[in-house]
């Protein structure tokens, strides 16, 4: 891509694990839901795990949009493999979010750890997790709204 006479390297980006989330039409994680008892799942579950469910009937279901931070923590040191991160390591917040759609989902925050609060309103986004061989690898994350 040529911008004002300069050559710019456009990095390609791809999900850190394929098939778990989408960005088109708003960030969403791809899970499932049991239509018999309403239990949401991410990642997709083959059958319902609710022992009180009258009979498992699973359908694909995407979860996204807004939610509230139930709690959060900060990774002040790099987690061990198989986690991957860019050097130098930058501490990040991990939020446990109750999405309006009924799913409690764990994910990194894109905002700096100091900005995160219990009860804060957030939305699901897709953002870069790490780079490898000039490629950006993405994951689902949360952003303060």
């Amino acid at each position: 891509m040529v911008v004002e006479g300069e050559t710019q390297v456009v990095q390609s980006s791809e999900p850190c694990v394929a098939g778990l989330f989408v960005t088109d039409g708003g960030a969403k994680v791809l899970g499932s839901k049991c239509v018999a008892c309403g239990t949401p799942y991410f990642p997709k579950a083959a059958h319902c795990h609710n022992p009180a469910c009258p009979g498992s009937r699973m359908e694909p279901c995407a979860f996204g949009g807004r939610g509230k931070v139930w709690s959060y923590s900060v990774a002040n040191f790099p987690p061990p493999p198989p986690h991957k991160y860019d050097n130098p390591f930058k501490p990040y917040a991990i939020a446990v979010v109750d999405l309006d759609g009924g799913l409690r989902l764990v994910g990194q925050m894109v905002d700096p750890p100091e900005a995160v609060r219990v009860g804060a309103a957030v939305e699901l986004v897709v953002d870069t997790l790490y780079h490898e061989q000039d490629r950006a690898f993405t994951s689902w994350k949360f952003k303060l709204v």
Partner: protein
Amino acid sequence: MQEVAVLGVGLHRFGKTGDGIVGNKSVTELCRHAVDMALKDAGVSWRQVEAVAAASSRFSGGKGWGLNGNDVVEDIGSTGIPVYNMSAGCAAGGNAFNVGYSMVAGGVYDIVLVVGGEVMPKGMIQTSGNEEVTDPEFLRQRCIGFPGPSFWATLARRRMHDYGTTEEQFAQITVKARKCSVGNPFARFQKEVTLEEVLASPYVSNPLRLFEICPVSNGAAAAIICSKQKAREFTTKPVWVASSAVATMTFEDSLPRGLAGPAPSGPSFHTEAKAAVSRAFERAGIDPKDVSFTELQDNTCYYELAFPEEWGLCQPGEAERLVAAGETTPTGRMPINPSGGFVSFGEATTAMGVFQIAELTWQLRGESGARQVPGAKVGLAQTLGLGGNATAAILKR
């Protein structure tokens, strides 16, 4: 069901690979030390042991799949006895005790060795060994990066929100724990720390600091348990197993253990721990108020606040006040972890459930020295392990 006694216990002091305590000893060597000590304490010879219940892990061991009792039996002398290897993460020691207890109580064997030991890999525990997209633990670490300390820190942060708990109050628990450890010859750390030192230690996962999270350690623990009839042949003052229980988490559990789950309408807590402890109380016919002291799994000091409340040892939101008033020290009204706990020992995963049995036994015999709970009659022990495992045991004299 017949009554079961703890006849003898043994520990290898906990340490770190390369230090003056454990050096480069293998897990088998550590276990041998603990087993020898337990056999001597019980007055039982190796040939009298009829079976082994071993806490098994994938971390270290001669056959490459972590500690297994077969290595211990080969090392001490292959008598051909049955070996049961129990894998339940950090709850494995408690699980092994439960299996040993159940077999003696059920009359299958009269004398059983329960053993756990570990040589831990350095640093934060790596929970996922394989890069497999069908493994939820792999997805959690690759897509998010959510190590054990951050799981604990999330619970601690929520408590700060719910009850106004301060970082100083978390730090105070470590100060108490390390004070207990001073009199304990088996603890890895045996020096007091000040509140200022705890608060000056770096965050591992904010709001939890280095001194508030148990490190990994090498160590081993063993217990010889036997039937009531056998106990009479060896001692006049046995310690009795009032109950032993195991539980796993239930569907309603809403702690962030995987990537996601249903958002709950009620509180979030360790359902497996509460279930195991409740079952132990029920089976023993013992009320929480009758407990003289508790050894609970304090991977982080947060649990010393949350667990006593969740199990009915005190009222919800009361724990901070009890800690501040000194009620959780060995001489307080609700002693918690008089041994010094995981924060003073470090965690040698499979040894922990058996280490707790050793501490309970010494306390109930009145042999705990400076950390003795005066007049201890009933002790509660509890472990928690990855995968939603929990165990509880109640011992009495």
